[in-house]
C-alpha cells in the first residue's frame, strides 16, 4: 500500500487529518506523531481549529522525517478527511498538488472543489464502514491505520503510538482503536504488538511543555498566573510538577495580581515566573516596571497570538515584540529573548531565567502559538550551565556601618541582594527612585547612578554564543527571530538547492542587543529580515540600534497562517534579482513586499 515516493526515512513527509469538531482528527494526529517517534523518526504536529469552543472543525497537520523539523513544509503528501463539513477553512493551510494523495470516505459526500482542483490523487476508503465493523470503533482510528500505511510506518509503531496516546482511556477504547487501526492499515487480524526495536530516547513535547521544563530546570519554584490562550498549557503542565518539586502555582485573580505575586515571591528568594499572552502582557507592564526598578528578578513568558487587542487568540503571530521591548514607561532596561523552536523553549526559558536571576532583572521570553501548541519529536535539549546564581548576601555577612546598601554601585552593576530573613540587612525595595540604601531620592545624581547601573549591568554581562543561532555561509543573510527560524532554515536549504548560498542568523537574545556580534555576523551580506508581523517590528528595532546595513530589506507578514519556506525563498530570490538589477531602493518596512 505504501507509495514509493513517500519515505520518511529519506525525506520529510507531511500528513494532515481534518474533520468536524469531535471527529477525533487531533487524536489521530497525536497517535501518528507518537507512532513516528516509535518508528525512530523525528516529527512535528500543528493543530488548527475554528472559533467554536467545542465542535466546529479541527485539523492536525503533521510532518515526520529523518531530521528535526522546525516547520511545516510547503505542501502535503497525504490528507485524510474524516468529513468535508468545514474543509474549506483549512484549504489555505493544507495545500495539495498532483503528488498528493487524499483518502476520502465515500460516505462523507462529494469531494470539495478545492480537492478536485488540486490535482491530488484520491483514494476512496470506507472509514465509517470499517469503523462500524468494530464494537465502539471510530473512523478516525481507521484513518490512523490507513495514513500510517500510506506513510510507510510499521503497524506496531502505530499501535504503540495509540497505546501511549490513549493511555488514560479504558481498555475497551484501546481495543477498539487497535482493531480500527489494523483495518485501516489493511491487516485486520493480529495480536497486541510488541515493538521490536527500541526507539531512540527522544522527547514528545509541545513548546508550552518545553517552556515549563526550562523553568523547572532553572530553578523556578513559584508560578502565579491567570489562564489565557495560547499560554495556559505552560501553567497546566507546571502546576502538578511544581508541587512534586516542593513548589507551587497560584491561580491569580488577574494578570495585575500574577505579576505582583511573582515579584513578591522572588523578593523572598524563590525564582519565579508567569506565562501569558498579549492582553495579559499589556496588563503586566506596570508590574514589570516595578521589577526593573527594584531589581527583582522575574520571568514573563509571552506566548504570542494574533493582535492587536483580543485579536485572533488561537492563531500565531510575532507581533508583541514592540511591547516586550518598549512597553514599559520610563527608561526601563530589561531582557527580551525569543525561543527559536519547540525544543528551544526549554533552552531559552532556562537561559532567560538564569540571566534574570543573575542580573536581578526581568526577562520577557517570547514564544508563540505555533510553538506553544505544537508538538515535536526531538532529541532531548541539554540544560544550560555556566551562569552563576543570584548574588545573595550570605546570612551573617558583615556590612558597612551605615547599613546594608541594597543598591550599592558595583563594578558589574549587580549589588548582592539580601533575602528577608537575613539578620542585619533589613531594607525596603522601592519603585520610587532611590539611593544606594533604597531610600527614596529625587536627586539627579541618585537617579543617574541607578539608571546607569540598571542599564550597564545588562550591557556589560558576557552572554556567550547563545545570543543567536548562526548557520551557513553566503552573501545572502536571512535574519530572523523566534518561531520563524524553522521556516527560514528550510528556505535557506531550498535556496542552496538552487545554488544560492545563504546564511541564517536567528536572534535569541533580542535585548540587550549583541550589536557588535550581530554586525559581524551580517558583515558583507545582503540582509533580509524575516518575521511574522505587520509592522516589521524587529526590522525597525534593529535599525533603531543601528545594527542593520542601510540596504537591508524586510519580509514582514502578519498571521494567522505561519510563514512557509517557499514564501521566504521566493522573497529572497526577488531580493537578489533586484540587487542584481541594481534597482534596490529604499526599503519599505511595511508589507511583505520587496
Amino acid at each position: 500500500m505504501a507509495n514509493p515516493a513517500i519515505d520518511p526515512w529519506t525525506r520529510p513527509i507531511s500528513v494532515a487529518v481534518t474533520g468536524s469538531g469531535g471527529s477525533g482528527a487531533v487524536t489521530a494526529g497525536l497517535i501518528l506523531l507518537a507512532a513516528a517517534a516509535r518508528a525512530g523518526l523525528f516529527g512535528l504536529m500543528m493543530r488548527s481549529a475554528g472559533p467554536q469552543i467545542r465542535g466546529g472543525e479541527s485539523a492536525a497537520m503533521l510532518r515526520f522525517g529523518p531530521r528535526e523539523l522546525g516547520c511545516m513544509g510547503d505542501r502535503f503528501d497525504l490528507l485524510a478527511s474524516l468529513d468535508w463539513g468545514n474543509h474549506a477553512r483549512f484549504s489555505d493551510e493544507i495545500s495539495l498538488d498532483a503528488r498528493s494523495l487524499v483518502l476520502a470516505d465515500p460516505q462523507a459526500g462529494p469531494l470539495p472543489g478545492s480537492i478536485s482542483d488540486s490535482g491530488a490523487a484520491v483514494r476512496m476508503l470506507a472509514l465509517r464502514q470499517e469503523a462500524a465493523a468494530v464494537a465502539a470503533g471510530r473512523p478516525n482510528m481507521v484513518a490512523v491505520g490507513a495514513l500510517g500505511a500510506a506513510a510507510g510506518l510499521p503497524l506496531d509503531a502505530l499501535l504503540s503510538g495509540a497505546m501511549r496516546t490513549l493511555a488514560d482511556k479504558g481498555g475497551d477504547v484501546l481495543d477498539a482503536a487497535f482493531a480500527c487501526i489494523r483495518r485501516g492499515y489493511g491487516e485486520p487480524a493480529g495480536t497486541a504488538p510488541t515493538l521490536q526495536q527500541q526507539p531512540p530516547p527522544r522527547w514528545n513535547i509541545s513548546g508550552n511543555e518545553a517552556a515549563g521544563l526550562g523553568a523547572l530546570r532553572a530553578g523556578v519554584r513559584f508560578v502565579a498566573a491567570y489562564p489565557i490562550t495560547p499560554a495556559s498549557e505552560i501553567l497546566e503542565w507546571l502546576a502538578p510538577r511544581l508541587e512534586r518539586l516542593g513548589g507551587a502555582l497560584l491561580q491569580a485573580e488577574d494578570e495585575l495580581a500574577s505579576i505582583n505575586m511573582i515579584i513578591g515571591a522572588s523578593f523572598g528568594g524563590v525564582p519565579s515566573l508567569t506565562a501569558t499572552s498579549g492582553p495579559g502582557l499589556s496588563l503586566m507592564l506596570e508590574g514589570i516596571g516595578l521589577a526593573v526598578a527594584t531589581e527583582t528578578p522575574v520571568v514573563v513568558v509571552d506566548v504570542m497570538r494574533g493582535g492587536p487587542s483580543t485579536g485572533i487568540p488561537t492563531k500565531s503571530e510575532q507581533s508583541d515584540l514592540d511591547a516586550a521591548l518598549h512597553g514599559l514607561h520610563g527608561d526601563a532596561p530589561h531582557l527580551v529573548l525569543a525561543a527559536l523552536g519547540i525544543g528551544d523553549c526549554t533552552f531559552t526559558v532556562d537561559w532567560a531565567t538564569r540571566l534574570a536571576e543573575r542580573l536581578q532583572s526581568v526577562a520577557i521570553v517570547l514564544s508563540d502559538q505555533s510553538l506553544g501548541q505544537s508538538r515535536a519529536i526531538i532529541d532531548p535539549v541539554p540544560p544550560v550551565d555556566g551562569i552563576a546564581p543570584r548574588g545573595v548576601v550570605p546570612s551573617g555577612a558583615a556590612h558597612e556601618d551605615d547599613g546594608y546598601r541594597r543598591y550599592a554601585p558595583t563594578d558589574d552593576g549587580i549589588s548582592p541582594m539580601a533575602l528577608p530573613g537575613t539578620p542585619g540587612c533589613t531594607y525596603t525595595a522601592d519603585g520610587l527612585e532611590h539611593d544606594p540604601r533604597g531610600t527614596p531620592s529625587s536627586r539627579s545624581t541618585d537617579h543617574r547612578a541607578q539608571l546607569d547601573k540598571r542599564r550597564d549591568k545588562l550591557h556589560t554581562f558576557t552572554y556567550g554564543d547563545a545570543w543567536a543561532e548562526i548557520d551557513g555561509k553566503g552573501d545572502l543573510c536571512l535574519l530572523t527571530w523566534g518561531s520563524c527560524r524553522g521556516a527560514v532554515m528550510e528556505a535557506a536549504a531550498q535556496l542552496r538547492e538552487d545554488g544560492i548560498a545563504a546564511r541564517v542568523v536567528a536572534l535569541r537574545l533580542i535585548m540587550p542587543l549583541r550589536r557588535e556580534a550581530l554586525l559581524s555576523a551580517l558583515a558583507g551580506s545582503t540582509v533580509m529580515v524575516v518575521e511574522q508581523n505587520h509592522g516589521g517590528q524587529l526590522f525597525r528595532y534593529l535599525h533603531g540600534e543601528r545594527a542593520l546595513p542601510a540596504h537591508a530589506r524586510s519580509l514582514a507578514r502578519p498571521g494567522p497562517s505561519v510563514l512557509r519556506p517557499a514564501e521566504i525563498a521566493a522573497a529572497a530570490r526577488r531580493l537578489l534579482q533586484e540587487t542584481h538589477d541594481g534597482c534596490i531602493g529604499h526599503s519599505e518596512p511595511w508589507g511583505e513586499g520587496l
Partner: protein
Amino acid sequence: MDASAIPSLGAKDYKSDIKPVWCPGCGHFTVLSALTKTLAYLGIPKHLCAVVSGIGCSSRLPAYVDSYGFHGVHGRALPLAAGLKAARPDLTVLVAGGDGDGFSIGGNHFLHACRRNMDLTYIVMDNEVYGMTKGQASPTTQSDWARSKLTPHGTGIRRFQPAAIALAAGASFIARGFSGDPAGLSGLLAQAIEHPGFAFVHVLSPCQTFRPEQRAWKQQVHPCRMQPTHDAAHAAELIQRDDGMALGVLYSEQIPVHAPGTGPTAAREALAGIERELLS
C-alpha cells in the same frame, strides 16, 4: 487582651532612620508607632518580618519600619504579599496602605485576598481621601463631601463599606481601630498578626491636611457593641447596621489557612523523574 498592658519597650528598635514625609499631625504617625509597639510586644525578629505596601501617604509606611519591606505600585500590595508569603511561609508578612490604594484601584485584590485566607495581616489607614495626590474623594468618602476639585458636588455615590465587603468576600478576621487610640490599635494589631489566616484591620487615620474635620473622630468613635460572632450571616447584619465608628474586633473565625505549596506532603522529588516522562 488588655491592650494597655503592651509594653513599649523595644518599639523604637523597629523604627528605621528614615524621616517620614507625612504632614505634622497625620494619623499615619500613630499607626506607625502602634505597629512598631506591637512588633516589639510580639517579639517578632526584625529580619523575619516584611511590610508590603502600594502607593499613597499611608503606603510609605514600610520604609519607616526597620524590617524587610516592599513599597510596590499603587493598589498591588496584596498580591505582592501573597507571593512573598507563598514563597516564604517563615516570614510574618504585613500589608499596609490607604483607602484609595486598597479599595479603589486595589479593590479586586482585596476581595480575592479575603477569599484566599493566606496568613497575612492587612492594615488599611482610612482617611476617606487621597492624601498623596492632594485631596480627591476615595471610595470611603461621604457622597456629599464637595471639597475635591474632581467632584465639586461630592461623588454622589454610596460609600465603600470595608468591613461589610471583607465579610461578604470571606475574610476570617475583621477589626476596626483608630489612630487616636494607639493602645487599642496595638491590641488589635497584635490579635490580627496572631490570627491564623487573613486578618483585616480597618484603621481610621485622619488626614490633617485635606480632612481637618476628621479631628472630630475622637468624639465619634465608640467601642464595638457587638460580641465577636462566628456566624457570618449574623455578622453581616450587624456590620450593615454599624455606623462605621465602632472599634474592636468585628468578626473572627478559625478556618483552614491557605498555604499554597507549603504543605508537608510536598515531596521534593527530583526533576529527573519529570524529564523522563517526556520521552516519546
